[in-house]
């Protein structure tokens, strides 16, 4: 099984390309979830490699919660233009109309409505039978047991007890009408692999990953960036300019920055190697309660 001639990055790359091609070949209407972050950047890069010289045989889907960092949206639109991609942007309009924000309804409910429900809504609307996600098994405990082809019922839910056994690289792509799979081509990548690959392949990423002076406030041990005027400031709270960067990207009110002076890719990777905290710590949603990721996955979150 092992060929020592291939470095582990080459092996991971080849494995991901194989997964991506298999989905394109087996499903009639796949879509690639594009979250704009570093994992999405790598996944997109791999997909372009997989089908070269053909264009991507499926569209990208971005679930826009309306609370993404502005630089993310700019980067998204530039990427789409640069690579000539087909992008679908979907927002839960009912949620937007109801004025659901991370501040008014809490991070849990907000994530449920504007991310999970929005995603399910988009998948149903376009009738996608397969959706690529950039999740990795090393991210979180319940992810470690996730399949590469993860089966979802017609209402998009995930049942950890009835997952199909997955052997070799023989993926079972059969679904009944209305059912779908989530495909995870980066399953076996670690955070370090992602950064090493971005470095080796020179993949463009959102500038927020690089250290820069940014206006931040400190709340509950987290550094929040004041990305626009919608962030309600508490009494006596004034944004400070700090040299910070982000290890993961999401909705700006839910994503903590880290103080850092790593302003280039090699510096980021170096910092990452000496880091002693895991990347999802910067995300509020995992901390709500033990097993919270598993709950969200059952409900249809990536």
């Amino acid at each position, binding site marked *: 099984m092992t060929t020592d001639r291939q470095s582990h990055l080459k092996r991971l790359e080849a494995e991901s390309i194989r997964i991506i091609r298999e989905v394109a070949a087996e499903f009639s209407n796949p879509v690639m979830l594009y979250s704009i972050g570093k994992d999405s950047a790598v996944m997109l890069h791999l997909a372009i490699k997989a089908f070269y010289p053909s264009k991507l045989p499926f569209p990208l889907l971005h679930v826009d919660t309306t609370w993404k960092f502005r630089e993310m949206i700019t980067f998204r639109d530039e990427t789409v233009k640069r690579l000539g991609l087909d992008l679908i942007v979907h927002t839960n309009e009912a949620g937007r109309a109801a004025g659901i924000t991370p501040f008014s309804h809490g991070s849990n409910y907000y994530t449920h409505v504007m991310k999970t429900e929005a995603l399910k809504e988009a998948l149903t609307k376009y009738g996608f039978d397969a959706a690529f996600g950039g999740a990795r098994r090393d991210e979180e405990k319940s992810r470690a047991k996730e399949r590469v082809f993860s089966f979802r019922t017609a209402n998009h839910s995930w049942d950890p007890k009835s997952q199909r056994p997955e052997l070799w*690289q023989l993926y079972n792509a059969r679904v009944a009408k209305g059912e779908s799979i989530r495909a995870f081509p980066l399953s076996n990548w670690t955070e370090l692999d992602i950064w090493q690959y971005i470095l080796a392949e020179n993949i463009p990423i959102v500038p927020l990953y690089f250290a820069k002076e940014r206006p931040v406030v400190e709340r509950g041990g987290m550094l929040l960036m004041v990305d626009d005027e919608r962030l309600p400031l508490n009494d006596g709270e004034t944004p400070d300019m700090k040299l910070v960067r982000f290890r993961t990207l999401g909705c700006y009110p839910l994503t903590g920055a880290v103080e850092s002076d790593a302003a280039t890719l090699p510096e980021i990777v*170096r910092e990452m190697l000496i880091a002693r905290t895991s990347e999802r710590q910067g995300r509020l949603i995992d901390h709500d309660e033990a*097993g919270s990721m598993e709950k969200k996955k059952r409900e249809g979150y990536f």
Partner: protein
Amino acid sequence: MNSVPASKDIAQFLDYIGEQEKKSLLRFLTCGSVDDGKSTLIGRLLFETKMIFDDHFSALEKDSRRHGTTGEEVDLALLLDGLEAEREQGITIDVAYRFFTTDKRKFIVADTPGHEQYTRNMATGASTSDLAVLLVDARHGIVTQTRRHAFIVSLLGIRHVVLAVNKIDLVDFSQDRFNEIRNQFQSFAKDFGFRTVQAIPLSARFGHNVSEPSPKTPWYNGPSLLQHLETVDTSDDLTKLPFRMSVQWVNRPDLNFRGFSGTIASGTIRAGETVVVAKSGKTSKLARIVTYDGDLAEATAGDAVTLTLADEIDISRGDVLASVDARPEVTDQFAANLVWMHEDALLPGRAYLLKCGTKSVSATVSELKYKIDINSFEHLAAKELKLNEVAVVNVALAEPIAIDPYAENRETGAFILIDRFSNATVAAGMITHSLRRATNVHWQAIDITREAHASLKGQHPKVAWFTGLSGSGKSTIANIVEKKLHTLGRHTFLLDGDNIRHGLNKDLGFTDADRVENIRRVGEVAKLMTDAGLIVLVSFISPFRAERQMARELMGPGEFIEIFVDTPLAHCEARDVKGLYAKARAGKLKHFTGIDSPYEVPEAPELRLDTTTETSEESADRVVRLLLGLGDGEDWVI
């Protein structure tokens, strides 16, 4: 990974990263029975290779107080048990993948459960692993599960094993005990074809011989577990095997480019070499090896590439491109080891979907030769195969595919079976050898074709397949239909369940396996009769969708007409013409459809007859109209 250069000199750091990228990858699985300390061992490996981040560790300290079993200490096993249900029950119920890295290698660990009912998960973890760590508790030594794990690991083709004799601290670091266990293992595992077996005395909980040699076992001169994992040579050198690539996707951006995308399963291929399409035998020269990063002069096993050929030959997804000098077997029958992975048992004769490489094809287990008792390795006769059972079987395919024995090539010798209705993955198979029957038994060339038979009779052959509960009125209606057709000068034949069971199928009973075989034979007979140009009426309960589907697929397009005689169970039971329901209710008749054996209602029959609202005569008229292709108002032409 533990020695990132301290200086902020980026050039020096880039050198370091360059070295890191050259690391190789080892995938292994851990297996042991409950409480052998598997999760603790992996937790220990993660901990000692500094893979546990601060926030994970503090979450772990919190968890340990709530669920832990180690008192005041941090319970490393809790790092592994991902799903809530497992955390509550304190057991691992699914395969989890873990990652860690050292300066020498990167590792992916499949953590697989040791419970009796989870052979399935172990086979899954083993299928992508190069090495297995078998845990035994030093106090208990080799137990039934150890034998079972060694067997499955060997069945899945793993050639490198570590016997981790855990909890050595609990037997006072006894060398005698360790030697006893090691010798016992070696004696029963000698026939398993393992290339390396390394026994290591260790304590996962206290870290003895995990990363560093322990001072408590001065009598042990071998490597620590981590030292062994970092250095063991598991390379099979797939690049030296004959070239194989299963075509995944035909790459056609425009009329000027036609490439075949796939991952090279084995061997090496260079531009200019000749390749063969295994199934058609057509050959062509390899024109280019295309990748996003530029064309390659050669590509080897594991590379994901796109190949273009010098000639326009017919190739589609599922085709295997191979070396002309060493071609794979092309066959529609082979022998295999099969691990059954689903609650619904394997039924020989039932049609499943088989996926091998990128090819999916309809398949049946034509013969269940024997089951293997995974504890005693005894061969047992069997008619069906249940969850977590292992058997040696013959498999027959609807069309030939290119294969290699699994022992020679894990890519072209492995397959999965998928249930055609639930879409569940029901089995994993490893091909042992091709059954050359397909090449030795040639079809007898026939001069009088089925078209000739049919045209002499002036009719289109059809199969009217009546399905429904016992006593639903199938045979009554089929009889009337046959009389009407006969009057109309049509050549017919009625195959009736009870009559066939008195002759052709008198060796079959009423178990699920026998019911499948019953229908398979009737389907084949009906097929021969349509070849003879007849209109065949089949009146069989035929309770399972899969077999009705199988019969449908035997016939030509439009020839199979499924007629669901939809009489509610209560009506059938009230009629009880043959007194069978009464017997079944009294428990004197086992496996009776509708009572203690299931009936799967047709999802899309060509015709549904409601015997509660129309007479048998009316029902029969509707069948005749459908068979002869007549509209509602049209008269019958004699």
